[in-house]
């Protein structure tokens, strides 16, 4: 069981941060997500989740953020070579250490980067390296993780940039010769590493490479993502020196699409050894193809799978349609608007409790008539599936509304009527399951 004291996640609004927060909450941890003042919270309300506003540039805001926390997961960083990089990454590290000392919070997981190991460093790599030194020299109980390229459902990082190019641009610009080797790692595995380190005291004082099991060249990575999304525009390689020169020029633009650090980071190989992480805290990352399969929607629309995960991003229109389908199935009536709202709210709340494969539900959406068969089959073979849980939640909502209570409360029947009803319904359940089993299998394979 986890301690009830919260774990502070800095940079919670970021690409990795968002995922770390949701997964830790889903695992039963109490999390305090640190967002910049004024930033909109990307999180649904949850009893184990607190939001705190603080700025790495302001030590006074960090102290209350750290107070009472059992540990800190440090993800906040300036990545785009902005002027404040030094202040945010290095100064921020010093302020965070001080805040931890004041708040008596000893444990810190520092998310660093593989770039800290390259010889020719840009601002990002240099400041992150300096930050690592601040943390490890602080006397706190620090573990550093050095991830390679991280990919996930949300758009962010190198992966998100590639994905955007692949979806829209006529050609993909590759900065450098495309031979740069990385070990792309699924964001969920990074989170698992963070959680495992928090639970493994022997990781204190150490730094670990975090990567996937497959080392691939940059060109190869682009091809694999292209294959998964179904769109492979031609690649154009920009020689390293020219890329660097371009990066220096565009750095003067207010919102630079590439930075010098990007170019430097994606052209110098690092030796990534995940052996220590495997041995010392059981790190077991997904292979690249398996990971991409999770991330990229199988429909080939190039939409990331988070769009299809329940709740965080399912639209109200979609959920309202679901609600009607389930209600018609259960009680033969369309639900009133307040019940639809209640269902939508419930699905938004519920996402944190589940990590679900949705293939059969997508199929049921397309063909609502098969819902009775799929439900009957899932009851036998996939009782905890998303499909069962959605219907279960709607059943609870219908049962607790006065308009429908009559269909749930007991009524007086003769013994013959009761037995006849039981036989009829049991037969129907069995027949529906018999029809549903092959349908369910079909939906899971091809849905």
């Amino acid at each position, binding site marked *: *069981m986890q*301690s*009830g004291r919260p774990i502070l996640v800095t940079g919670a609004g970021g690409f990795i941060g968002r995922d770390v927060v949701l997964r830790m909450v889903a695992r039963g941890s109490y999390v305090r997500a640190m967002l910049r003042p004024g930033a909109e919270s990307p999180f649904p309300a949850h009893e184990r989740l607190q939001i705190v506003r603080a700025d790495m540039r302001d030590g006074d805001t960090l102290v209350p953020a750290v107070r009472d926390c059992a540990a800190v997961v440090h993800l906040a960083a300036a990545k785009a070579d902005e002027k404040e990089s030094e202040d945010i990454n290095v100064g921020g590290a010093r302020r965070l250490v001080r805040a931890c000392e004041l708040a008596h919070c000893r444990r810190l997981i520092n998310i660093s980067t593989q770039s800290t190991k390259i010889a020719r460093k840009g601002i990002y790599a240099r400041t992150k390296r300096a930050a690592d030194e601040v943390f490890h020299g602080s006397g706190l109980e620090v573990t550093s993780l050095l991830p390679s390229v991280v990919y996930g459902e949300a758009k962010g990082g190198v992966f998100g940039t590639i994905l955007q190019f692949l979806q829209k641009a006529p050609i993909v610009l590759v900065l450098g010769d495309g031979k740069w080797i990385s070990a792309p790692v699924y964001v969920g595995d990074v989170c698992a590493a963070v959680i495992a380190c928090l639970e493994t005291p022997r990781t204190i004082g150490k730094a670990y490479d975090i990567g996937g099991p497959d080392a691939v060249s940059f060109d190869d990575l682009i091809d694999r993502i292209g294959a998964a999304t179904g769109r492979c525009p031609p690649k154009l390689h920009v020689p390293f020196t020219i890329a660097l020169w371009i990066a220096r020029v565009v750095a003067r633009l207010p919102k630079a699409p590439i930075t010098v650090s990007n170019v430097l980071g994606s052209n110098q190989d690092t030796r990534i050894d995940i052996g220590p992480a495997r041995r010392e805290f059981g790190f077991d990352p997904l292979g690249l193809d398996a990971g991409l399969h999770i991330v990229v929607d199988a429909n080939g629309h190039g939409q990331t799978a988070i769009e299809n995960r329940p709740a965080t991003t399912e639209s109200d229109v979609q959920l309202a349609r679901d609600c009607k389908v389930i209600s018609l199935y259960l009680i033969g009536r369309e639900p009133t608007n307040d019940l639809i709202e209640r269902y939508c709210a419930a699905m938004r709340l519920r996402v944190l409790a*589940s990590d679900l494969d949705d293939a059969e539900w997508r199929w049921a959406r397309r063909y609502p008539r098969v819902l009775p068969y799929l439900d009957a089959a899932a*009851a036998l073979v996939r009782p905890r599936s998303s499909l069962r849980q959605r219907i*279960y939640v709607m059943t609870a*909502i219908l049962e607790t509304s006065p308009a429908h*209570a009559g269909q749930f409360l*007991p009524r007086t029947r003769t013994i013959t009527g009761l037995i006849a*009803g039981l036989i009829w319904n049991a037969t129907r359940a069995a027949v529906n399951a018999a029809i549903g089993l092959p349908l369910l299998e079909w939906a899971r394979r091809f849905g």
Partner: protein
Amino acid sequence: MTERLDAIVIGSGASGVHAAFPLVEAGLRVVMLDVGHEDLAYERLIPPAPFVDIRKSDGNQHRYFLGDRLEGVSIGAADAGPQITPPRAYVLKDSQRLAPKRARSFEPLESFALGGLARAWGAVAFPFQDVELSRCGLPAAELPEHYEIVARRIGISGQSDDDLCSVRGPLAALQPPLRLDHNAVAILDRYADVRNRSLRDGFHMGQTVLAALSEALGNREPNSYSDMDFWSNHGRSVYRPNITLDELRGRPNFIYRSGFLVSGFSETGDKAVRVTGNILEDNTQETLTARSLVLAAGSLGTTRLVLRSLGMYDHPVPFACNPHTYMPCLHYRGLALSHADLCHSLAQLTIIYDPTMDREHLVQAQMYSYRSLHLFRLLKETPLPHREGLRIMRALAPHFVIWVIQHEDVPTPGKYCVLRRGREPADETLEIEYGDSTEERARREQHEKRIAGFVRRLGCLPLKRVHAIHGSSVHYAGQFPMTHEDQPLTTEPSGRLRGTRAVYLADGAAFAYLPAKGPTLTLMANANRIGVSVRDRLRA
């Protein structure tokens, strides 16, 4: 209250309020320290009406039946059991945050609520027999008097002349029994037919003795049979410790301080006990001093305080917890019966099984009718499609009964609690290991099969047996057993913790054994006895 305190009582649960009662009654100056969570927001929404009427008319019912955050709709994750409904969720609030616990295959539940775990008590009130009291370490000769005092204070209803009387301690202060529901009436009738044979086989059955009123008591009303006892307590028919606390709070020599988390105690040279803790609101430390200290923080809370205050880290102490099993059954003999809507939802009937025929090692089972919970919960447990499942459940629900079987438990070397140091005092973790032996499990299995056979004889068809995760009975005991032998980390029969001058244990931590009967009534009676013993010492 600037003069010196006579006693500090830690905790406002079943033990705390009854230990404080004799002290306050005697005019001594008493402070009760408690975290004291109480959140009645949901309960206030619940109209004082029968369950069926609420279902048909209250547009707000989803708020308290399901919870605003859907906390009443469990999606497969472990939950604390059906008795922790959303209106009662506050009973377990902050338990892990304020008191970190770690356990494998055990669910340690602890309460920081005003009234403690007994705010969600099933209200089964079962006086122990002498042999059971002695094995707990309690003086069997003294307890009957305190049972009567507590019974008059809290109000207990039940039969005074059925087959259960021979397997429980005496209790004179009984109100007439509550009305039984249709399942219970039919099962009891059936029992009358097979009674002689059943008694020969060691099965005693009767109406459950309940800490719920059938007649008014003070300003409390008799049970309204609205079948809402899992959700609300209108008229305060069912006893909860906050009822006694309200009485105590009317006295000028008693102070109740909530929002106070006690961290430890020490004894000072001038014959006083010093108690230190944190005021949770602003996290400031405060120290109080009194002539005596009564620990009633609940078995786990008291264990943490004692081990920490004595510096006994990494030192295992014994532990016991009643294992229990749910046995949902279809009462098939009752299928043709009509059912009334008005009933109470507490336990209706109790079976005592005496496998050794010497009344030494009893097994208990209680029957509940599955009514004021919802069908959707049942659906999740069945391999049926929701639509047809709903129709089947709806037809059968009035005839579903749940037998909850509870076993005795003795501390064995495999079961223990140990306090581990953390980096910070707040990180200290109470580790609980519940390693029951193969023989214990085999014996329980055998007893459960015999009980399943017996309920079949009564017209109930057992559908399955669900072994609840260890710990979910929330009956914990054994850490500092009460004994005459002078050994460290034990409790004297007077309740005083050995090695201390004026620190008393009034809760389950001092029980050396847990009979199969729920311990709550005995906890209260014993707490009253400890309160009297502290009172006499302070007066002397």
